[in-house]
């Protein structure tokens, strides 16, 4: 407890890159601070009042000198900008093959769901060495899912999906924090990410499926897409969105990721946010050729159920496919 670490563990593929930039910037800071410090010290001693020194022809301006200290910091800044932005691109663009986990933030806990359907609260088990993307939303206020050991975080917003991704390089247990102030117990909205060797993770999954985790044991064996399929029938979605042609509502096979033309002629991309809006507030964007007959499910479906439904729709890529033989991206 009383040791003094200077950096958190480097436990993701990005951590090292962020740390390199960090150390470089400290080097720069030390250099310029010392430079100024030494200059001040030298001048302070040499030109102290009462001390004999050459004070003739003191310059008032020197445009050349000023140009130097505009251009040099500017050049250094641009280098840092380029470097930092390239890291940022990596942080905010999940690789195409990333396995998708889900997270919901809620005052004051984190609810996670793995692609295999395992649900956890304030704990997230993940395999080492795999690209993992966490898609998340909030049930109430702003939160922020922060993994210090992975050097990444992102805000979690109500009414929208955001995501973080990482590829853990070390097994072990690391902090999860909420980094956006969210009310009274903000500092208790913490958790652990547990990184395991892939085979160990596999074993953990199967053993945990037998139902030791207290809540939601019934669906512990369902993947999000399977849960979504169950909900699809339960809420009666299939009565309108049936079959490849669709009846009252458009068919949902292959919709995810496509361009949808709306009644007002606009075109939107059918992404997570569009799906969510169409479920919760269906009259907002009506697809061309259809009527606004779908009920609004706001207040009746939880955020997790929405995520499951989207996972199910996402799984229905290509016509005629059923949910059983297609599972979310990346799952073997």
């Amino acid at each position, binding site marked *: 407890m009383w040791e003094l670490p200077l950096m958190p563990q480097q436990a993701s593929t990005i951590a090292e890159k962020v740390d390199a930039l960090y150390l470089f910037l400290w080097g720069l800071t030390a250099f310029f601070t010392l430079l100024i410090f030494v200059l001040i010290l030298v001048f302070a001693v040499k030109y102290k009042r009462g001390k004999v020194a050459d004070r003739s022809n003191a310059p008032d301006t020197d445009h050349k000198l000023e140009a130097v200290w505009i251009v040099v910091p500017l050049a250094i800044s641009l280098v840092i900008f380029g470097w930092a932005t390239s890291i940022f691109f990596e942080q905010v663009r999940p690789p195409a093959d990333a396995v998708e986990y889900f997270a919901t933030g809620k005052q004051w806990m984190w609810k996670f769901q793995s692609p295999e359907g395992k649900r956890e609260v304030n704990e997230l088990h993940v395999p080492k060495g795999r690209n993992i993307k966490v898609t998340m939303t909030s049930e109430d206020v702003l939160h922020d899912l922060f993994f*210090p050991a992975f050097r990444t975080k992102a805000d979690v917003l109500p009414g929208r999906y955001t995501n973080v991704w990482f590829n853990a390089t070390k097994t072990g247990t690391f902090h999860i924090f909420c980094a956006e102030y969210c*009310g009274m117990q903000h500092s208790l909205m913490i958790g652990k990410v547990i990184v395991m060797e892939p085979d160990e993770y596999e074993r953990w999954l199967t053993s945990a499926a037998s139902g030791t985790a207290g809540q939601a044991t019934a669906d512990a064996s369902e993947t999000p897409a399977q849960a979504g399929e169950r909900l699809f029938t339960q809420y009666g979605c299939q009565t309108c969105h049936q079959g490849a042609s669709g009846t009252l509502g458009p068919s949902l096979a292959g919709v995810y990721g496509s361009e949808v033309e709306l009644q007002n002629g606009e075109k939107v991309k059918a992404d997570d946010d569009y799906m969510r809006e169409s479920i919760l507030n269906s009259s907002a964007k009506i697809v061309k050729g259809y009527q606004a007959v779908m009920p609004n499910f706001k207040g009746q479906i939880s955020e997790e159920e929405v995520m499951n439904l989207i996972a199910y729709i996402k799984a229905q890529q290509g016509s005629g496919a059923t949910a059983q033989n297609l599972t979310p991206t990346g799952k073997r």
Partner: protein
Amino acid sequence: MPGATNGVFEMPKTTYINAQEGIKSWLLTGDHKRIAILYLISISIFFALGGIFAALIRIELLTPGPDLEAEMYNRAFTAHGIVMVFMFLIPAIPAVLGNFLLPIMIGARDLAFPKVNLLSWYLYMIGGLLTLSAMLMGGVDTGWTFYTPYSTSYSQSYVFLTGLGIFIMGFSSITTGLNFVITTHKMRAPGMTWSRLPLFVWSQYATSLVMLLGTPVIAITVVLLAAERVFGVGVFNPNLGGDPVLFQHLFWFYSHPAVYIMVLPAMGVISELIAAFSRRRVFGYSFVAFSSLAIAIFGFLVWGHHLFVSGQSAYAGIIFSLLSFIVAIPSAVKVFNWTTTLYKGSISYETPMLYALAFIGLFAIGGLTGLFCAALGLDVHITDTYFIIAHFHYVMVGATVIAYLGGIHYWWPKMTGRTYPEFWGKLSAMLIYVGFNLTFFPQFILGYLGMPRRYHVYPPEYQVLNVLSTAGASVLAIGFMMPVFYLLWSLKFGPVAGPNPWGAKGLEWETASPPPTLNFDATPIVTEEAYAYDAEAEESAYQAALQQAKHAK
């Protein structure tokens, strides 16, 4: 103190302080100097209050577990932030030093609108007291940033009343800014051209522009917040089709430029101090003057760097990052300019100069760590952690508070007619410098380790650094308290200062200390540039005086 003033001078008979008597003559005054004193008193009290909240925060964080209740801790850091930002940092230098000095420095008899100036103080007090009354009734727990939807739909605290107070204080900023801009344009003494303006006046001018243009935006934001909270309008509420990130854009569109409202006047003060104590014209005068304007204008374009992980588009993030790097350059240049001003100077080290040198050191670290925050890939990790807390304290306390204290010490003889004890001044300046670094440097490391801000309990491995930080805060608190005592002491017992105790240039040193109600006996005519120092000549005069003193013994 140069020129051995002890006991040589007598207090002028009539000054702005004794020209009229009675509390009413103060509360109804139109004299900018008296209004400055009213501000000085109220702002000092608010600063102490903000300090008490800081102490509460630091005591809580001494151990990883909870000492205060979570609710109380949240209200304490919110109160600390609100008091420090809206009631101290934004008004401090403009309302106290600016009010007192701006007219005198340009050779005017008062500000353009003396009654509006008094109104500004009343607005400030009414707003401040409303905000304080909200705190007494139980406070706010949203953080000074009031992010929605927490502040609109979830917080069970006095958001509305606090917001109302801030809204009213905003009008105080606007009227002060307006008054300063018009005064600078219209009331300069004959010969006081723009290129002869003291850099302090330049910085006040630039700041006033930001106040005028930026403050209405926070006023609108607060109104929207109130409408949302009271009537459920839905601008920021996603359940009603609103957007919580929109609030952040509006909030930071004002609050980022507000950082420049705090820092530009500080830079102005430092330019004056460095020039006076090294007996040199500030190196690159025109660049320093125009860079204030440049910072004021470009400062409006970088608000989005507070939103890198908020869900705003990655491309917006990149543009804001680039602009942030560019706006940092004028600040860097100022640091080099001040440092170079020392070259071939005739430098002395009284208390204000110690503050000025401390400023350069702290501002350099504050500014350079700003690069960490502007650097996208790195900011993703450090944003909303203690790294940010450390960075903005280096900028806001290290720069604004230090410059304010330096300025108060420098102009104290002018304001009160008396000098304070140098020994205690120097000691407190040094305690503040050491205490400050001990408090906030560990927080950079703490933040990088991952400790999020606004946490009232934390994992035990963060304790060592928190203990260091709290220890530093105790030293800092002692450093801040000392001036209260010796400055008050000096009001009665301090040696009489005389018109120009520092041997400095500038119109304010050409009138009596304290000045008469109308500042000058006759309107001054300006024939030379600001800082017409000649370090070489002044140094030989000093040497000659030394020799004479030796012979006399």
